[in-house]
């Protein structure tokens, strides 16, 4: 079949999906951030391995960026933000964990079905890696949908972007400029969201999205 190198790539991509599942059921914010850091570490390992088997040295840079920024700086900044917002003790009741996990499995099955059907002529290994990357993206969206806390939604958004990076590095030849521009846009989005979080906190004394629904429009 295929060699050990591609097996390791699959293994790392599968671990990324697994870590996304772990993020789904975390209900404490510190634990969520730790798992997100783990997500970024696994992503950088995966990108580094892709750099090794594709012999593409610019992907090493991508791996280092992922490691430094997403496993180091961003979780650290979110950590401090949580402490300043004062929400580090909150427990987010992720309602009915069972159906959410089942939905996660359904999403993995869906991405498998989509990817393996619409690309019948491409290399099998690349298609499976793409399927895993699509799963990570969909799971990131699921994390955003099932969280009520704004910080949790930011983490979900970041993990979506991890999935995009995995997809891009799996397909051969992602130029470095794309990676840098994507990373910068995410950074800008992150800064803007951070600023908005603080404004929201100032106005409404809470960052719970459910509570903010009360102030929508003319609703009393």
């Amino acid at each position, binding site marked *: 079949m*295929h060699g050990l190198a591609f*097996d390791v790539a699959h*293994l790392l991509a*599968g671990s990324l999906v*697994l870590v996304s599942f772990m993020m789904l059921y975390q209900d404490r914010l510190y634990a969520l951030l730790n798992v997100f850091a783990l997500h970024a570490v696994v992503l950088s390992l995966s990108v580094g391995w892709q750099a090794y088997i594709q012999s593409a040295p610019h992907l090493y840079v991508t791996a280092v960026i992922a490691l430094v920024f997403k496993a180091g700086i961003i979780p650290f900044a979110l950590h401090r933000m949580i402490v300043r917002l004062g929400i580090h003790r909150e427990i987010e009741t992720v309602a009915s*964990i069972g159906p959410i996990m089942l939905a*996660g499995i359904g999403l993995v*099955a869906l991405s*498998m079905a989509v990817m393996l059907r619409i690309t019948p002529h491409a290399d099998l290994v690349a298609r499976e890696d793409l399927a895993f990357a699509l799963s990570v993206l969909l799971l990131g969206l699921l994390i955003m949908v099932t969280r009520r806390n704004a910080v949790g939604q930011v983490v979900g958004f970041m993990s979506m972007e991890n999935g995009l990076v995995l997809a891009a590095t799996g397909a051969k030849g992602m130029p470095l400029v794309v990676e840098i521009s994507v990373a910068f846009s995410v950074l800008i989005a992150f800064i803007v969201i951070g600023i908005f979080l603080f404004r929201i906190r100032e106005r409404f004394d809470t960052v719970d999205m459910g509570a903010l629904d009360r102030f929508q429009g003319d609703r009393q």
Partner: protein
Amino acid sequence: MALAVDFAVQGGQMLLVIVLAPFLTGILQKMKARLLRRQGPSVLQHYRDLLKLMRKDVVLAENASWLFRAVPYVIFAATWVAAALIPTFATGLLFSWTADLIAIVALLGTARFFLALAGMDVGTSFGGIGSSREVMIASLAEPAMIMIVFSLALLAGSTQLSTIAQFMVSPAVGLRVSLGLAFIALTMVGLAENARIPVDNPATHLELTMVHEAMVLEYSGRHLALIELAASLKLLLYFSLIACIFLPWGTAPPHAQWQAYGIGLAAYAAKIALGAIVLAVFETATAKMRVFRVPTFLGAALMLGLLGALLLFVSRGL
């Protein structure tokens, strides 16, 4: 002649698992004590405990029925037959084709069924609490185990353990994602089925923290000795299963020479020792979960098993 040799090897394995099981429990207890900076009991203490229990009288409740007295023998028989059918130092033993992995899982299910019935026999609330929690754990652990069996069977093309073990040694296996998922799920199921921390505490007799100990609360004497031996045997069974599937190197192929059996025995001993060390460290480092977090834990194992099987259905390369 060859038939006699095969018979001897199979019989040797059946004796080996019985002799080794209390030793394994002893090693675990000693290591956990050492990690907590205690001296701990000797590694042969479990043998002495079993002999002591055998010499004591059997003390039965007034309303214990014939089922209560028969259950320890049934549990021991089912666990021993299941443990004897798992390849330890050699694959392809004489009777390995009588039961495949599904039948072995179901034999353990039989033992658990009767143990739960025994817990309900005397009619106390302790027995009831043990039995009801045990069937709750089983209702999630057994499907997880079946999904793991499915993943392994789809990879190896067979549910026979010897065939699976030989497939794992062959170069066709590679490092598969579904194998990794199956390994994690099997470890979680093994912890739950053997009543280890974080699911149940094997060293306690407080009713709020016990599942297995609650069901055997009324047993004494030789009955309790049989049940304890069966529990040690089950732990050895799970170690052998993980070793046979995920650490298959060193196992002797069928109809091999004496040297190969010797190497197989040494490899088996090394794998069991490794497993004991890992389990001891893990149990000392983790706390027991609340009982109603166990379904989440086992639900995760079931999801991992389902995901592994699903990936194999979708693409044979995964």
